[in-house]
């Protein structure tokens, strides 16, 4: 292999607000990096081909599939996982609403659900249920049947809109 292409790549990034420097294998995806190198096991690697959404995390302000991004691409990136968004209270109301409405059973899909839902909620306003369903259509849940998840997201949208207006 020529010198140009690296089997291991050095990256510098911020994860949940903390500076991280690492050397990663060229083909490693972001979820394996977060889980195995940084011990952040909130985001799950499940289908690993973009279908289920269990790996959804926030990179540079956008919700993305962690399994479809390489760790090598993270140099200079700002990454937030469900752990960081929990610790800084960004999604506390959403988590409370998920618990109150039983929007999780086994909880495997929940970290991805929360990050995806937060992206929609951050746009503001009270989205129609159809819009919530459409936005969440890339996140699979094998337990709940989705109704409670949509309820929880809708509840939080109303609460936040109420706060913004008061």
């Amino acid at each position, binding site marked *: 292999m*020529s010198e140009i*292409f690296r089997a291991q790549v050095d990256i510098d990034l911020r994860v949940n607000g903390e500076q991280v420097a690492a050397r990663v294998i060229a083909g490693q*995806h972001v979820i*394996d990096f977060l889980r195995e190198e940084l011990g952040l096991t909130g985001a799950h690697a499940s289908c690993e081909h973009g279908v289920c959404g269990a790996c*959804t995390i926030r990179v540079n302000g956008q919700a*993305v599939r962690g399994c*479809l991004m390489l760790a090598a691409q993270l140099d200079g990136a700002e990454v937030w996982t469900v752990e960081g968004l929990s610790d800084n209270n960004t999604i506390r109301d959403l988590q409370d609403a998920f618990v109150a409405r039983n929007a999780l059973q086994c909880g495997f899909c929940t970290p991805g659900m929360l990050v995806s839902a937060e992206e929609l909620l951050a746009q503001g306003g009270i989205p129609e249920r159809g819009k919530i369903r459409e936005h969440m259509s890339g996140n699979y849940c094998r337990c709940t049947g989705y109704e409670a998840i949509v309820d929880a997201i809708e509840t939080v949208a109303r609460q936040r809109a109420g706060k913004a207006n008061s």
Partner: protein
Amino acid sequence: MKASAGGYARANDLGHAIEMLGSADGMGRVLAGGQSLVAAMNMRLTTGDLLVDISRISALSGITEDAASLRIGALTSHAEIGTDPLVRTYAPLLRDAVACIAHAAIRNRGTIGGALAHADPAAEFPACVLALDATIHVTGRDGKRAIPADDFFHEVFETALQPDEILTAITLPKAERDERQTLQEVTRRSGDYALAGLCLVRRRAGHRVSLLSVGSRPVLARHAMAHLDAGDIDGAVAALRAEIDPPSDTQASAGYRRHIAGVLLRRAMADLTGEKT
């Protein structure tokens, strides 16, 4: 299963990327949004690729206009295309397509250049650029080429791109003031690849009809277009069903795809004329 890449390199600019592809001895692989490529790597459908990451080349991203045409950089994401005001005004077909492509998180990273270079016959953008009569711009070691969309798609995942070439942008004629564009498709669930889909453009020069998921590449339905130009919708539906040769697979039979292609054409015409089907 885990991906096995041969190596990774980040390109600073287009010239750098082409140089690196050239030095990869045939193993070079452009990495754009990664929404098809990384999935394929994770499934080990491809191994040992020397990845040339072009995703940071800002000159390849963004949407601009001149008097007659719209230019969309290869790295422009599906999400950007879905919300861009120029696209809404001058190429609404592309905006409608975005709503049909995958899910929000995938649209945040997937790029139009990647979707065209990938050339999945079930993807929306390839069929759209055919219907819009767009031009695909590529650059390689031997310089630049401008390829009509009509000549770009060869087979499943095969295009006119040479191994050392990078798709840089597409240009397309701006929609005329009274031009109409519509996309119709049948999917089992939101965000799934369509069982069949159809783009219809009506402009002064005539109708353009293209289809996705009915063959090994997106197709232009020339006979149906001629019948529509003559004002004969029934004739167009019959011609359309005769001129496509859809596959049978686990998703749908050839006969069903042929049937819904005709239904989609009627829906598209009804959408243009404001009638209900």
